[in-house]
């Protein structure tokens, strides 16, 4: 799937509607493609799948190295634009309520508060990271628990 030479000739651009258009190395053009990370947490920058609107896979890129630099930049920007996973920088406080807790946090996208339905919704990611999924299914990441401040760590320790 990832023949280096052919991948280099792969093209991506935005059409007049701002939709992403994919031209595969064999010349086939697809409008409004959606890039999807197959392993968003374990290897976010490999295994990028380009799907059409119905979810059918057109092409899968095992890594982005072979892409033309501008295509790669555009793809990465598009992927970044499509995902909303705030990184929690600081946990301000947690208000415990019957069954679900209200979290007040500072993220890289600003201050926020969300509802955590249960402790199953926090899971470890790798050695030191954590992923929190709130009541609406929004994902919050903590890159490194060790790098949080003492209070945040103390709060987190009750859940992990």
């Amino acid at each position, binding site marked *: 799937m990832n023949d280096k030479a052919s991948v280099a000739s792969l093209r991506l651009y935005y059409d007049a509607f701002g939709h992403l258009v994919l031209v595969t190395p064999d010349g086939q053009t697809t409008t409004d493609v959606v890039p*999807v990370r197959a*392993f*968003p947490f374990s290897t976010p920058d490999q*295994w990028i799948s380009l799907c059409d609107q119905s*979810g059918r896979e057109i092409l899968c890129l095992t890594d982005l190295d072979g892409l033309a630099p501008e295509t790669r930049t555009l793809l990465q920007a598009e992927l970044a634009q499509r995902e909303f996973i705030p990184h929690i920088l600081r946990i301000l406080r947690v208000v415990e309520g019957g069954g679900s807790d209200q979290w007040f946090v500072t993220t890289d996208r600003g201050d926020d508060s969300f509802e955590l339905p249960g402790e199953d919704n926090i899971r470890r990611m790798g050695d030191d990271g954590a992923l929190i999924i709130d009541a609406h299914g929004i994902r919050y990441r903590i890159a490194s628990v060790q790098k949080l401040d003492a209070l945040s760590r103390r709060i987190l320790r009750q859940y992990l």
Partner: protein
Amino acid sequence: MLDRTSSTAAKNLPRWGQKQRTLTEFDTTCNQLSEPLRGIVQALLTPGESLRAVFQPDLDGRLKYSDGLVVLTDRRLLARESPDAKLVAWPLAQVERLLARDRGGLGTLEALGTNTRLHCWYHTVSRAGAARDLADAFQRLATGQGPGGANAREEVLVPEGEKPATPANVRSIFRLFRFARAHIAALVLGLLLTLGSTAAGLVPPYLTWPLVDKVLEPYQDHVKQVRATPGMSDREHAARMRSLEQEGQVGLHRVGFYLLAFAAASLLAWAFGWAQGWVLARVSERISADLRDTTYAHLQKLSLEFFGTKRTGDLVARISSDTDRICSFLSDTLVDFIADVLMIMGTAVVLISIDPILAAATLCTFPIIAWLTVHLRDRLTHGFLHGSRAWAEMTSILADTVPGIRVVKAFAQEKREVERFKASNRRIIAANDRVNKLWTFFWPAVALLTQIGLLVVWAIGAWEVFSGRITVGVLVAFLAYIGRFYARLESMSRMLSSTQRAAASSQRLFEILDRPPGVPEPVHPTDPGKVRGGIELRDVSFRFGSRQVIDGVSVEVKPGEMIGLVGTTGAGKSTLVNLVCRFYDVSEGAVLVDGTDIRSFPISEYRRHIGIVLQDPFLFWGTIAENIAYGKPEAARAEIVAAARAARAHEFILQLSDGYDSMVGERGHTLSGGERQRISIARALLINPSILILDEATSSVDTQTEREIQEALDNLVRGRTTIAIAHRLSTLHKADRLVVLEHGRIVEMGQHADLLSAGGRYAQLYQAQMLLGQARGSFEAPRELPPPRPDRSGGVV
């Protein structure tokens, strides 16, 4: 059943593997009998008559227990119902055949003449093996086969499984030491620290003796003397007072010394106590983890049958709360107990050395306490065992209803489940109340006894002081000591309950640990190497308890061939597949893969070559990628994605918010049935098995989903030996051959079209499904089944 040419001695222990025995010359039949029986049997034989088989039915004609005897010789069939009954004999010419059958635990052996039943013997299923052996021996006689000869079967070296032992209760606690052994150093350190702490605690009371007798009392006496001496001159009085003052100074110094020593000893006791607590807590944590690890590892080796009979909650309780109790016993109670025994002995020695009479008074309540302890011990263990069981029942209800919550809600049975839970909680209360009554009575009783002991010591001590045998200081020291002595005694008595609790728990734990693994590992394992996938079932039989599930099945499957197993529910399809997977071992016959008996392969090596897709795919808690790579955790992402693609799972996985990194719950609740099934197909694909088992892989999904799964399955089946079970016959359209099972026996075998035109059992099943499908309008046989061959007349569709 009669035409089965089977006879091994393993029939009464089918679960524990094949007994290691070859069929031998019939003259040795006699030697295998136990001594008294051999005498009896030999007395029955006429000269020149040779013994062929002996069977001892254990029930009489009215199904009451009795001790019967049936003997087969080369000339006659001899029998009597009980040792006192009259012997009956039939010449073999009269006997047409012997028919051994069993059902629901009761077996019969019938001797049939040409047009009448000569006799019928009844036996419990434990004797069924011998009954069959006798029938088989008769069959060989009738067909004129030599002894053993044609039926001597290949022996496989498989160790004879041990029967689970039921360990005596108290002994089970001693068996726990194997878990403590690994941590013996830490435990000894803990013990030493405990001893140190207690020894340091013994010093202060010892100091009270000289404090009272050598310092306080002499000074007080002097003061009294000075005050009480009449007619003393002022100068003399002043001099006396001065010397008294000096004495007081010295005395105060000595008081200071004693108090310092007192404080130092207390400090030391505290430091030791701290260290001891920490060391023991650490080691206790580790022992507990070891215990859980061992039990869980053993649990994983047990047969499916074991899990079929045990409730999940009960197993969970055994591994979680029972290990916890044992661990607290091993680390805390045990060390405390040893320390207490040593300290009590030490204190007793000190007490006796100070004053034997007082010591005797102190120890007078000891026998009563000992008697009480012995008396209550067994009742407590029973009580705790009862409590543990009640607890396990409660967790069982939880383990039952939490996964089944949809059923509970759908049938609006919440109230009933709450009631059920309450009822089991009440049983816990009742069980614990009984135990609590016992032990709460016990230790206050011990406390009372120690108080009485104290009273006796005071009384005798006072008398001894009055009669001048001892000083007040001795009495004070003594009282300080026995305070500790009794405290030790009391703490020992409290240990009783935790010891008995641990005994009960260890009994429950060893019930698991003593159970031999479901299928034994071979003694001399053969490496399966690269499995080509040729499977041969050679005269395979399997009985489950008293039920004959598989009965003399023989099939040969070529590498790469796909076999469809067809039959009604309970025909033995799944059991047959379980035998191929070696989840169970055959009772008779053998399963051979590439010509080698699978019992000679190491189990996990062998199973590595088997891929299995079940009706209800189980997804573990973890990511989708982890679930696909379950059989090969080291698989690269490319392999995972390739497997998912082949299983038609890739695209729906991409649609999930976290792709392959999405978490799926205990039962994969967020995924649909078809999606889960495709993940489980990907899981089977990834290990690239040479043998593939599809156990109703598509029966839990709708036709649309089935079609998707079918595509995935077609990818999976390609080039592998496949055994597929399906209710929906349309699923088996790719099968090279169909095997129709009924009551554990093969009734038909062949290709779809051939079977259909033969008009046998398969044709009936097929017609029934067709009618049902047409009625529902959802049967898609025309599309999915190959068109009937033009040269056949099977134009059914």
